């Protein structure tokens, strides 16, 4: 017990074994867990407040009491407006953008992993830097170009813009997954007469499938979470759910339960995915930051 703890413990003072040391150690650990739980409750309080507000009847809205009969009025009000359409738009744009980034990015990541060409590091670094670039720098040229190309306020146009960050994410993440697949299997396939991409398709890709799934989820979340591009590049037809929520705030700012219901629906897929792929998510959110 003491030795397994010591591996991850910072203050090793209380790991000295002995019957007398055991009780304070346990107390301290419980104290730590209690403190962590209390801080977690405080941290998540704003988030939970939004969720409960979505179920609050309009009459109790300005009352801080948690004693109310939950109602779905807020959600019902949402269904009658244009919100369902913007929600579908969000789904369509995020799916389309994810599909495009995977189709282009996965082969590129594979080539970058297996092919050590001169200048490879510079290409990889350039791809990472595109993730860093501020959206405003891309928005102005895209806004002007889309006016000419007729892509303004279209789902396709928005999905294309999302490639500016999603493509970098796919190439970056998939490299680590492909590195984990041993090359011996591919080499065996080459000897049997497989081409590079045939071997990739039949052997490497199936082995890296969990990585592809996790990357897809991350791409979806990043596209889903975008607000800035959608605000500027859409007007009426291709409005996404985050923009729709802001429209509620600006034009129907008193309908708090409807707004809170919209917020709850928008974050629902993200929170769901977070629970599903937590481990990979951590990897993706810190992409480029940790030396691994």
């Amino acid at each position: 017990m003491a030795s397994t703890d010591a591996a991850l413990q910072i203050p090793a003072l209380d790991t000295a074994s002995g019957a007398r040391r055991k009780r304070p150690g346990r107390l301290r650990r419980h104290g730590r867990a209690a403190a962590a739980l209390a801080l977690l409750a405080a941290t998540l309080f704003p988030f939970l407040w939004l969720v409960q507000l979505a179920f609050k009847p309009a009459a109790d809205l300005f009352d801080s009491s948690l004693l109310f009969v939950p109602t779905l009025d807020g959600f019902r009000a949402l269904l009658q407006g244009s919100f369902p359409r913007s929600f579908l738009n969000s789904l369509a744009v995020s799916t389309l953008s994810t599909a495009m980034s995977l189709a282009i990015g996965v082969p590129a990541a594979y080539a970058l992993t297996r092919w050590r060409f001169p200048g490879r590091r510079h290409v990889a670094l350039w791809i990472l830097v595109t993730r860093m670039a501020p959206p405003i720098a891309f928005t102005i040229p895209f806004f002007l170009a889309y006016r000419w190309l007729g892509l303004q306020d279209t789902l396709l146009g928005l999905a294309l813009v999302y490639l500016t960050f999603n493509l970098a994410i796919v190439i970056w993440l998939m490299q680590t997954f492909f590195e984990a697949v041993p090359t011996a299997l591919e080499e065996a396939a080459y000897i049997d007469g497989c081409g590079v991409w045939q071997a990739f398709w039949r052997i490497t890709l199936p082995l890296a499938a969990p990585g592809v799934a996790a990357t897809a989820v991350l791409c979806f979340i990043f596209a889903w979470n975008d607000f800035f591009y959608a605000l500027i590049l859409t007007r009426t037809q291709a409005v996404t759910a985050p923009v729709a929520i802001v429209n509620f705030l600006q034009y129907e700012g008193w309908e708090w339960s409807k707004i809170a219901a919209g917020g709850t629906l928008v974050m629902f897929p993200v929170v769901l995915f977070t629970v599903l792929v937590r481990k990979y998510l951590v990897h993706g959110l810190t992409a480029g930051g940790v030396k691994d």
Partner: protein
Amino acid sequence: MGAANTLAAPATPGLRAAHASRGWQAARRRAFAFGLAPALIVLLAITLVPAAALVVASLTPLSLTDPAGTFHFRDPLGNYRHLLEDTRFLGSIATQLKLSAASVALQLAVGLALALLLNRPSRVLGAVRGAFLIPMVLPPIVVALIWKILFTPDVSPLHHALESIGWPVRSLIANPDTALWAIAFADTWQWFPFTMLMVLAALQMMPADPLEAASLDGASRWQLFRYIVFPHIRPVLVVCGLFRLIDSFKAFPLIFVLTDGGPGNVTEVTNYYGFIQAFNFSYWGYASAIATVILAGVFALSWLVGRLGWSDHGKH
């Protein structure tokens, strides 16, 4: 070539294999180039081309009123000269620096403290670690909405609580003295999990031996942290700080929803000022100059990240 092959082949089968292998290597290279090319072309078209267009546009007085007539290069540096005299722009940079410094410092402090608190092998703490990530993955617009609710006296439980103890407070985001700090606070709430995650990862890679040795020698908790743990996680903290600093230049939804740059323009950061110039006033040329300045700042910081955190990555 063919003759050489037929001559050499019977004598040394190994040479033929080498030839075949060279051809195979070339085919492999071609195949890889074929796989990489589409991504590079697309990236070129959607990142480098717009960046170049941005710089070109920043050299013109392009605006909505007369797009064709204002697209000329008679005074290419006019926008940049104007920037230096524009007090609203200079003020926005000061606001940006205040906001970035406050929120990055808070994020590092809170993230570090929580990572140290949660860094124990325990099932409870493991679950808590996961739950702490929620603010970071929420859509930024939902985060803005959450804080809009908490900062609006009508519906905020905090305002209600303060009122009930006889201490009503003005909304923090409507008060020019506190609006910027309210945004820094909300931003910290959203992003401290990033630092927490990175520091936790670094702590778990830390070897246990030096700690054990030092504690046997009678080092205090503080000494252990100061001389062993902190030096180990310092590089991670630096990279975290730079990453968050870069991202803080892009802060948009929080400001858009909470204050809209106000009251007055105390929360108008550079990014937001560029947005207003481009999409409220439609001075695209001028806004491009602002965006170019931000882009240059981000590149400089990214280069710093490359120097500090990333150089090791390439070597290993």
